[in-house]
């Protein structure tokens, strides 16, 4: 199952929100959709869900419009909201019913999911009587009930304590391993790094970077090395001596980050370190964190 957006543009009034974006998500691989506030993430999500049509371009699921394939989407909106005055189970059955599930099956599925998140005792309570964290869990159940083939999770971890976050991770992992398409939108980069195999960074209505996280990191500037366990003073004098080879040196955590004049001169550096008798515990190529990459690609403004 492949969901792809092809050259999609969308304007609201004078404002062009999306300027020709293309991306594709495959079943069994989670896609992290990143972008600063106002970058067009919600618009992209709503286009995928066919709430409004794009001005130009196409959304295709396995080559045809998603509406025709009868696929169901589970959506966890960033702005959480359910019927506060209605019973938990009642509204879960309703939302599953809207996605086409028969009542009895919806009831069973909702109860099973409530059991899973430890809320089965609240099935008959009004939602407003539940704690905020439990309301969040009910919202998650509302997303998953009806067994949708596509999951769109917008800031799923906000408002969850570590135990509930672990539970959510488990549930999402399960969905990914069952071959569902999972879109993940978050500002918490550590979660994206943990879950997503692929990312797409939206900035200014365009996709500025997309692909597998590992590949992106791998293709990053390979000329920066991290040297662990070396004396900072000693390294500093070493860098001064080798100014043809070392362009920059800064402290990084317990080690040091240095930039080589060229990425292929790693062995040369190691030989120089050994020759100069600089003691160190390890040398590795510096891979930026997702957070570093995100900042780099979106810093220039939306």
């Amino acid at each position, binding site marked *: 199952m492949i969901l792809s957006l092809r050259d999609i543009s969308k304007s609201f009034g004078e404002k062009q929100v999306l300027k020709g974006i293309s991306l594709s998500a495959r079943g069994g691989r989670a896609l992290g959709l990143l972008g600063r506030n106002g970058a067009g993430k919600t618009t992209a999500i709503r286009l995928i869900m066919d709430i409004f049509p794009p001005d130009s371009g196409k959304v295709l699921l396995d080559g045809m419009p998603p509406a025709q394939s009868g696929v169901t989407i589970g959506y966890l*909106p960033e702005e959480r*909201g359910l*019927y506060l005055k209605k019973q938990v189970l009642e509204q879960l059955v309703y939302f599953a019913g809207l996605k086409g599930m028969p009542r009895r099956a919806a009831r069973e599925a909702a109860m099973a999911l409530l059991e899973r998140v430890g809320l089965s005792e609240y099935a008959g309570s009004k939602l407003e009587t539940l704690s905020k964290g439990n309301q969040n869990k009910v919202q998650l159940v509302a997303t998953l009930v009806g067994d949708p083939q596509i999951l769109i999770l917008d800031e799923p971890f906000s408002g969850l304590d570590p135990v509930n976050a672990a539970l959510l991770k488990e549930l999402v992992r399960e969905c990914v391993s069952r071959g569902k398409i999972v879109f993940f939108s978050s500002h918490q980069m550590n979660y994206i790094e943990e879950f997503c195999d692929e990312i797409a960074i939206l900035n200014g209505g365009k996709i500025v970077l997309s692909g597998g996280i590992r590949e992106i990191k791998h293709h990053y500037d390979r000329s920066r090395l991290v040297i662990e366990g070396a004396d900072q003073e000693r390294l500093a004098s070493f860098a001064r001596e080798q100014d043809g080879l070392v362009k920059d040196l800064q402290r990084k955590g317990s080690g040091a980050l240095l930039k080589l004049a060229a990425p292929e001169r790693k062995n040369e550096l190691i030989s120089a370190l050994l020759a100069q008798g600089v003691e160190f515990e390890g040398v590795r190529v510096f891979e930026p964190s997702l957070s570093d990459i995100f900042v780099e690609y979106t810093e220039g403004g939306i």
Partner: protein
Amino acid sequence: MKQFWTVLRFEFGGYLKSKAFVGITVAAVLIIGVLLFYPRLAEIFSAGKEQREQERGEIALRNGSGIPDEALLAALGAGLTDKDIVPVKDDQKALRTAVERDDYDGALVLESPLQYVYIVQTVSINDATTGIVDETLLQMHRQSALVERGVPPGEAQEIINAPVQGRVDRIGKNQMENFFYTYVLIILLYMAIMLYGQYVAIGVASEKGSRTMELLITSARPISLMFGKIIGAGLAGLSQMAALIGSGFIFFNLNRPYWQGNEIISSLFDMPLSIMLYCLLFFIAGYFIYAFLYGALGSLASRSEDVNTLVTPLTMVFMVVFFIVIFGMYSGKVDSGLMLFCSFFPLSSPMAMFVRVAMGEVLVWEVVLSVVLLIATTVGLGILSARIYRVGVLLYGKPPRLSEVFKMLRQA
């Protein structure tokens, strides 16, 4: 279509499960029950109080008219059947203090055959004494005047009491008879359309306010959501009206003998079936046209608090229509030019045409034309409302102006 039924079932079920809805319906049925059982209950209670009923009022009579006491006492006694008349010689001032002291319930001071003073502490709303005394004195005056002019007393009696036989040959409708039931039905129509229309608006806005809409709009088509909600509320309104009217009929028929004397109440429950069916037709058509507009306006509000400002213009239109119709009914001119216009204009025709059908002279083609216009407009407004709803539900912030809404519709 399946989604529509799911929404309809959820919305309608929501009303039936709501404590407020059930409570109000039950309370209204109870009130109707108490009202319609009242004569029967009153009789049961008064059976134990027969002794008190025998306690008759006492009225003092000072006869200064020159009419013989016996004749006057007999004539007044025949009229004031629930009072004992006590002839006295005290003057007006003394009688005044006596009435004030509660020695008598009242006092009559006759100064001449056609002049009297009725002394009483408070005139109760059903005190018919003065009317009876007026009538008695007038009759005695006519009798004596005729006799004085040489008419034999028996003939004089006949002249005065000559019976009149009249008969109404009615070609059109009797507005007196149908006024009351039309009035009751119009008020029901007005309340039901307004109440349930506003429920739709508030329902939509609160789904937006609580952000439930985010999930709804992504799970279901806007058209299913809007129609399910509107028809769900409409069904709730219909079942509430059916409960009220049905229980009214049942309670009335249980107590029919007790209401024999009350023409107003009897006319209400003896209304023709056709009028009931017309009421149903105009409720359904009128409800939809307003509910669509209320739904569209509700979708423009960001929170349920904003709803009032948005729906006020529509509510005002509806109120103006209501008053035009009510004034038309009171003036009896239900077929006037204004009413004629209102009975074809879709926003007012549900009420105006209903009143004309019930109380005026309407040709069949007029009703058909009015209903066709109404349905066509309802369909048109339904499509427009669904489009506004589609755009409106995702719109947050300050409610947009109407011109902005149309601009968005053109772009969407």
